[in-house]
């Protein structure tokens, strides 16, 4: 019997991600990913001053505010071929890296862990045994028996309070939940710790960005921070030391907890290393520029085809033609006019709504391709490209994670292909987070050293020519490759297109009918109980989806989200 499952978070509001799957004999045979995010939102920018575009683009999305600000100023600077001071690069790098770290921690502990950790089962755990297990894996100071007991007590109170429907979304007791009560309690304990820790990263962003949640210090041409020794509003040594203090705290948590928990939990879910693979082509852009021109980067970029690391083609500068010329978007299966894949500078955003048509148009998201192929973006792509170019940090932290999987599972070998899976994406994100904290430390040190040489520059004023210029600004954002494409005429924006990470991953079938990464990754997923499609959520969540970005309406009703229909 074939069953169709529709998961649609808030059906009242168009704009959220909707996933449809057909399940036959307990496995997914067909999948559709549908969403709306950018319908015409870029049109607000047409006719505006390019220097102000970033203040709007950072409102595109709730959690990705910073990344859209960065990509926007880079796009305009690229159009002008404007160099920016090294201090400005480093300050932006610190902000974006701290933001990425916060994002990765929250994604795992607060948004995804409940897919794997059975919170209610943690009530049955022996806190002393939990503590012993935790202390055998790491030196995190909050793993003691008293802490575990306190967490369990707090959880008991919370669950007992009834009216709250605690963690109502969780699929407690689902047959796909495999952890022992002790491991579940450990997960809950670190969930609580992570709530405190993620804020350290926010504070770094707020100190440099001037305001939280929306940063104010970015400018086309650099940053508006002034560097000095006295006035409290400027970036002085006291503020830099405060940032360093937060970096140290983050490092301890990431290396003693996040980088340990994910592979340890993964070791109990080894079957999920062969589920959820996706399109197996990977794209990432270089980031953390070290020079004023954007030709030397701390984080590598490139494209890998068919999961073959040897196929790597590197992307190396802000002017990289291989990246610039390879991106196109098709609307054949999206609710816009046209169908052929268009380059973003020629991109069109004219709506043409039909109903949800399985074989026709069914999404507000376009389908991006790279030289005609679908590509996955995000931490998995970052790690594979990092390993392919021989980056020391990516290789070291990946080996560390694999070591933990081996130690917990008793396996003697874990192939690299295990990463190309649902649970593998979480492992890749943890590895990337460890790389990012080292990068953050480096960028901080370089900023301190550069200021020490007497260089206090943070801004080069842009000058706009008459006539038309074009630019692309890219950023290796927490969810993956983000690019903003701008056409400027006589100092006004003429066209603006944002090709965002979740467009790459969540896009519908393309002009050639090729399914996107979400759609491919869902094929052959097991579904034990169609009424509780936990497995579908696991795979989609592993990408860190970003589709609900634009909307944040308060909803006091708990809307039914899963619909099941026998076909």
């Amino acid at each position, binding site marked *: 019997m074939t069953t169709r499952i529709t998961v649609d978070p808030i059906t009242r509001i168009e704009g959220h991600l909707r996933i449809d799957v057909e399940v036959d004999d307990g496995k997914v045979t067909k999948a559709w990913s549908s969403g709306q995010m950018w319908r015409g939102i870029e049109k607000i920018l047409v006719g505006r001053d390019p220097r102000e575009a970033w203040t709007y683009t950072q409102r595109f999305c709730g959690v990705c505010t910073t990344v859209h600000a960065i990509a926007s100023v880079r796009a305009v600077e690229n159009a002008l071929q404007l160099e920016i001071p090294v201090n400005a690069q480093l300050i932006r790098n610190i902000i974006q890296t701290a933001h990425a770290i916060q994002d990765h921690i929250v994604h795992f502990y*607060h948004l995804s862990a*409940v897919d794997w950790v059975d919170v209610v089962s943690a009530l049955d755990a022996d806190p002393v045994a939990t503590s012993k297990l935790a202390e055998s894996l790491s030196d995190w100071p909050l793993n003691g028996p008293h802490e575990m007991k306190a967490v369990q007590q707090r959880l008991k109170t919370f669950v007992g309070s009834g*009216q709250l429907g605690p963690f109502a979304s969780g699929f407690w007791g689902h047959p796909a939940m495999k952890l022992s009560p002790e491991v579940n309690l450990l997960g809950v304990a670190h969930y609580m710790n992570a709530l405190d820790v993620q804020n350290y990263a926010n504070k770094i962003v707020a100190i440099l960005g001037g305001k939280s949640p929306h940063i104010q210090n970015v400018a086309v041409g650099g940053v508006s921070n002034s560097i000095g020794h006295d006035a409290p509003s400027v970036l002085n040594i006291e503020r830099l030391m405060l940032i360093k203090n937060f970096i140290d705290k983050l490092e301890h948590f990431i290396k003693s907890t996040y980088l340990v928990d994910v592979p340890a939990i993964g070791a109990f879910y080894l079957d999920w290393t062969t589920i959820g693979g996706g399109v197996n082509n990977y794209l990432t852009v270089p980031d953390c520029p070290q020079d004023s021109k954007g030709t030397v980067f701390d984080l590598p970029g490139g494209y890998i085809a068919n999961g073959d690391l040897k196929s790597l083609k590197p992307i190396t500068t802000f002017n990289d033609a291989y990246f610039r010329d390879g991106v196109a978007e098709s609307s054949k299966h999206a609710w816009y006019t046209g169908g052929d894949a268009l380059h973003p500078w020629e991109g069109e955003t004219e709506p043409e709504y039909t109903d949800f048509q399985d074989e026709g148009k069914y999404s507000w998201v376009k389908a991006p391709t790279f030289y005609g192929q679908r590509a996955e973006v995000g931490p998995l792509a970052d790690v594979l490209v990092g390993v392919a170019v021989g980056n020391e940090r990516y290789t070291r932290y990946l080996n560390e994670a694999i070591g933990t999987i081996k130690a917990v599972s008793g396996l003697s070998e874990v192939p690299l292909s295990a990463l190309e899976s649902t649970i593998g994406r979480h492992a890749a994100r943890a590895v990337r987070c460890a790389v990012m904290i080292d990068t953050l430390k480096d960028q901080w040190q370089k900023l301190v050293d550069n200021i020490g040489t007497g260089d206090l520059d943070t801004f080069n004023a842009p000058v706009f020519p008459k006539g038309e210029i074009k630019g692309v600004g890219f950023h290796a954002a927490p969810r993956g490759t983000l690019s903003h494409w701008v056409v400027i005429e006589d100092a006004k924006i003429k066209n603006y297109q944002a090709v965002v990470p979740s467009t790459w991953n969540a896009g519908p079938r393309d002009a050639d009918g090729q399914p996107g990464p979400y759609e491919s990754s869902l094929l052959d997923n097991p579904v034990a109980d169609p009424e509780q499609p936990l497995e579908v959520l696991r795979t989609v969540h592993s990408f860190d989806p970003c589709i609900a970005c634009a909307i944040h*309406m308060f909803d006091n009703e708990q809307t039914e989200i899963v619909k099941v229909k026998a076909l």
Partner: protein
Amino acid sequence: MKQTNRGDILVIGMGNVLMQDEGIGVRAVEELENRFHIPDGVRVMDGGTTGMELFEPMRQCDCLIVADAVNAKVAPGSLVRIANDEIRAFFQTKLSNHQLGLSDLLALLTLKGERPRHIAIIGMVPHSLENKLGLTDKAQAGLEGMVEMLRAELAGLGVTLEPRRERTIGHWHREAALEQAACA
């Protein structure tokens, strides 16, 4: 008892200003600041559509007032107040778990034992959520009532707001006005 900080009362405006009435909450708190002097002990914040970034400010306040667009079973344009026990703190299932909504944040605060002692949501049911800067005319007309409800909520907490002699003009108000001029 939870520790209180400089912002004993936190007023957060939430929403997306690029989607018409979705941004009503941000516009309402902006308007509140334009019309009244905000005294010490009250902190007004533009939360946009962010989530986790608001957790720390929320856990440090004693009373929380949120202005937002609200999905309620009443006619568009209706102003609603949902407070304390009426607010359900729950973790919403969502495919895009990218973002924590207000319900999730309140659930986290409860789990941590750090829920503010008073929480009120002052909301408007939106008329339209198109990708446009600026409120619909109908929502614009209702903004006045929403600001009044925010003022009354603060008064109920013992804070009397003193009107500014001259109203200031907020950033998003100005941008929306420019947008209208451009379209005309």
